[in-house]
């Protein structure tokens, strides 16, 4: 579904010829330390970062010629924290519907219902009229997930959806994702740690210094991370990679 042989970025290579493909119905997590290139990998797949060599395909079409964007729901790393003008939660989520709506076509009942459903799925239905800027970080993140869900995509691409998100939002987010996967959706998510999402993830791709060092079952956490009750506080020190990824 998403295929690469990638190298990328300015003068400095960030990815050294990596190849990944995701099939329909899979839930794949791209794991790695900060600066490992895991976000770049996913952004290259979406055509947001140019490839120096290699190719990226979405649903079998080279990304440059890909036009069926409504099949993809993208959740970027975090809203451009508070844009100049306030926007309500509903307004932001409704923007996710535009991929399906088509230019200049007025909103129909189905569009409004999809927005309502997406808001409900992330547990923000009652806050729809509030300015996004007044929500907590976790609620803002849920708004972005609702925006992606509003387009009723087949593939959900999430870039660090749980980074710095409070426990309540993480749980709401995991529930929303569970619902999406149960409906037959495919998920590609970039994460630093999986937290409550772990049971959902079927396959993990571990990126380390621009190369894929693991592609298969989710590695078993080791050391400090092995404690299921461990209190993970962000921002946190560089990933303790050796202890984790060499433990398998």
């Amino acid at each position: 579904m998403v295929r690469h042989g990638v190298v990328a970025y300015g003068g400095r290579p960030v990815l050294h010829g990596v190849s990944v493909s995701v099939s329909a119905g899979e839930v794949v997590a791209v794991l790695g330390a900060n600066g490992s290139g895991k976000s770049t990998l996913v952004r290259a797949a979406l055509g947001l970062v140019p490839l120096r060599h290699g190719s990226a395909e979405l649903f079998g079409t080279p990304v440059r010629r890909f036009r069926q964007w409504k099949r993809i729901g993208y959740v970027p790393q975090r809203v451009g924290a508070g844009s100049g003008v306030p926007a309500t939660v509903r307004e932001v989520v409704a923007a996710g519907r535009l991929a399906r709506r088509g230019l200049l076509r007025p909103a129909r009942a189905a569009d409004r219902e999809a927005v309502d459903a997406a808001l409900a799925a992330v547990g923000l239905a009652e806050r729809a009229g509030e300015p996004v800027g007044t929500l907590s970080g976790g609620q803002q993140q849920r708004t972005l997930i609702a925006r992606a869900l509003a387009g009723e995509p087949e593939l959900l691409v999430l870039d660090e959806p749980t980074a710095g998100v409070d426990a309540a939002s993480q749980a709401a987010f995991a529930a929303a994702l569970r619902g999406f996967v149960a409906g037959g959706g495919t998920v590609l998510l970039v994460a630093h740690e999986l937290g409550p999402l772990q049971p959902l993830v079927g396959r993990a791709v571990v990126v380390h210094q621009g190369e894929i060092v693991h592609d298969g079952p989710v590695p078993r956490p080791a050391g400090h991370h092995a404690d299921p009750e461990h209190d993970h506080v962000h921002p946190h020190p560089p990933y303790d990679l050796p202890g984790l990824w060499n433990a398998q």
Partner: protein
Amino acid sequence: MSIFQYDFMIRALIAALITGATAPALGVYLVQRRLSLIGDGIGHIALTGVGVGLLTSHSPVLTAVLVATAGAVAVELIRQRGRASGDVALAILFYGGISGGVFLVSLAADRSSTNLTAYLFGSPLSASRGDVVVMAILGGAVLLFGLVLRPWLFAISQDEEYARVSGLPVRTLNLLLAVGVAVTVTVAMRAVGLLLVSALMVVPVATAQQVSRGFAGTMRVAMLSGVLAAGLGIWISGTRDTAPGATIVLVAIAGFLVAAASSGALRAARRARARVPAPPTSAPPVPVSARDEH
């Protein structure tokens, strides 16, 4: 209100009201992208268009629209490149625009008695019937563009990268927005002048932000506040014989100060009430609701 028995005052009022509604309708997108000063730069470039018009005996409004549009497209292309040197490129473009304008107008000075000040700071009182008609047509087109395309323009202004992954024609919409800004600047030239255009694109939006919760609400309140400032400004300048463009802008700024002070007081009151449990009968004043129905 007896000043409005004169036709030229009526024309001035209409010209100002068109500007008051149009400028914030596009300005809201610029403020959202934190490009509040772009309108000012495009106003500078438009002055070259005025100079070209005067020198070649064409309508200065027409040539200003053309030159400002070309300038706005150039600005947008520089912005899309996102280079660090883009900042300097913009400065050269803007100052080149204003000095080119002054230069050309001075060349044309022996041919026409036009006062440069009229274009820089506005002269709604001298607007002819034809001027007002042109303003109404251009202003109406810009207003329609800003209102009808709101969901899409909102999407590209709020999160451009996401809009690209949504498959929206981001580049085309950006260029259209740039052209819209250029036309707005030219429309407003008559009423408040090229140096003050940007104020009417930004100040009413800042005022609206104090009271609204959403984007659509901000846009509506900004247009309302722009229209009020324009109407009140023309009335004051007509009765007190003050410079109309500057008066309109000062009224708009006064409106912003009032809105900022009252919303600050309201927040403080609400915080105080939150600390001391209030009787449930005192419903908190609800700010302008911003339910989006598009």
